[in-house]
């Protein structure tokens, strides 16, 4: 029990370290950025503010202090859970996150689920089965190579414009989620399936598979009950990475399908040098990644009971 607690504390410390690094990185990135944040605060380059207004805004946002002080104040504010005001949207960053995170999280969850489903369907019935396996494996390689934004535009053209099966844009309801989900899920399914196929093939060579077959278990049962469990572990760790990659890829997808969401917001806030919003979104992404790591750790133990006692 103590080593479990020890492990949890260690993970928590690592998580905090990652968040601190995320905050520092965005701070550094946006302070190295050419272009004055004050211009962004006062409504962009076209607003043409008076020198007094600039000085006032500079003071209000603490931009006239030394950079080390700004950094310390910034970290202290974030530690209190205050992410500040968005320059470009004139509302608290927390409020922007609250509005923009749910559509992106829904898109990520559906993409991950569909990707897993596709990968399972592609690998489990075809692994080690000659021609079928070769065809499925080729499709997986091609799938993994498809750029999400290209796939997105082609799906938009085919299914939304030519055949008018699905809405081309928007946030509302399940139909609007289908095309963005497919654009993100198909390449991801290719990645997951490649990893799954490799470990599935390895698992099928193990002695316990022979034992199971010798006990008279059918091929389907051997694959589902014995080989699959072993093939899942590397795919779970790949999925943690995928959660992060999905946010990055969601940038283009949300723009193509005119969806609200964090990816699009991140792109817009980088373009307008809206520093508090950028760091808020990056912190949120890092937090999601950390939580995904925790979830993966839990899943490992559920999938592989051998890990229960042995993991330090």
């Amino acid at each position, binding site marked *: 029990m103590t080593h479990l607690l020890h492990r949890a504390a260690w993970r928590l410390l690592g998580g905090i370290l990652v968040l601190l690094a995320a905050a520092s990185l965005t701070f550094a990135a946006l302070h190295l950025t050419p272009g004055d944040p004050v211009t962004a605060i006062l409504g962009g380059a076209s607003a043409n503010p008076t020198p007094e207004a600039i000085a006032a805004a500079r003071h209000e946002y603490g931009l006239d202090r030394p950079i080390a002080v700004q950094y310390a104040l910034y970290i202290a504010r974030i530690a209190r859970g205050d992410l500040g005001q968005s320059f470009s949207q004139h509302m608290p960053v927390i409020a922007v996150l609250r509005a923009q995170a749910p559509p992106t999280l829904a898109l990520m969850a559906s993409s991950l689920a569909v990707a897993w489903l596709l990968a399972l369907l592609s690998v489990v019935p075809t692994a080690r089965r000659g021609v079928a396996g070769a065809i499925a494996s080729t499709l997986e390689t091609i799938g993994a190579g498809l750029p999400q934004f290209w796939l997105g535009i082609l799906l938009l053209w085919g299914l939304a414009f030519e055949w008018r099966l699905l809405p081309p844009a928007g946030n509302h309801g399940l139909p609007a989620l289908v095309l963005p989900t497919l654009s993100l899920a198909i390449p991801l399914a290719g990645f997951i399936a490649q990893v799954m196929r490799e470990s599935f093939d390895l698992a099928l060579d193990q002695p316990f598979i022979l034992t199971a077959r010798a006990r008279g278990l059918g091929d389907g049962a051997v694959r589902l009950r014995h080989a699959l469990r072993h093939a899942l572990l590397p795919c779970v760790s790949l999925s943690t990475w995928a959660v992060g990659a999905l946010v990055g890829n969601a940038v*283009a997808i949300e723009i193509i399908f005119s969806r609200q969401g964090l990816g699009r917001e991140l792109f817009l806030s980088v373009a307008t040098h809206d520093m508090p919003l950028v760091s808020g979104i990056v912190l949120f992404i890092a937090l999601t990644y950390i939580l995904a790591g925790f979830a993966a750790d839990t899943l490992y133990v559920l999938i592989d009971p051998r890990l229960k006692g042995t993991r330090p």
Partner: protein
Amino acid sequence: MTSLSLAPSVARLPSRRRLPRPGQLGPAAAILFLTLLAIAALAPHLLTHADPLAIAPRDAFQAPSIAHPFGTDQSGRDILARVIYGARQSLALGCGAITLSLSIATILALIGGLGGRIAEQAVRWLIDILFAFPVLVLALLCTATLGSGIGPLIVAIGVGSAAGYTRMVFGQVLSVRDAGYVEAARALGHSPARIVVRHILPNAFRPLVVTATMGIGQTVVWSAALSFLGLGAPPPAAEWGTMLSMGRDFIAEAWWMTFFPGLAIVLTMLSTTVAGRALQRAIEGR
């Protein structure tokens, strides 16, 4: 040596057909495409006579035909010529970014692997931290500081994708560091610099040849994604990502404006993957 390596292949000959196996078609096609790509990057005029930037408003939005195999765009520019001329920039981006990325990875891995316990732990933490940042998010942050254009894009992708490669090279350096031949060299009194150059680098790098080959395709995709977002060369430059983003505005009228540049990206990614795997099999002697 010769007789040793010949014996098994001779023994296996009768059971094999003389035709190339389907498994060899993939690498052959991949190498063919990569050769075409290299020609397109170095001497594009050998592959097309059309000018990628010449506008011909009367020929706008022509569907693929014999005169324009890939069709034309909104100003009548030939898409095939633009895809061919785009290879240079896309490959320069891909190769530049992967070189930068692997250089960062090598430096960090050597520091972590050979710099003692504290350096090793620091590099482990750094890798953990960088992994929390998706490649494209990190790259977006970089372009925010550096601005847009080819140079900043190479840096953004190079830095953004460094974490994954660092983990890979770091693992290699660690396993090579404790190998018997390194210990032997140390016992013989060779200088640390000599050990790094003669033993650790070559052995840690062999798997990297494969990684780099596959990585070029991946970096081409990432840089196309950033160009697509408007962070690369501005239109009407012949660059695959930029062409895709131009085509998106006309997707309902002219699918070919988007399809063919994207196809070039996909084929590049696929052929580097297939070629990389073939290389891996060759190196491992399978």
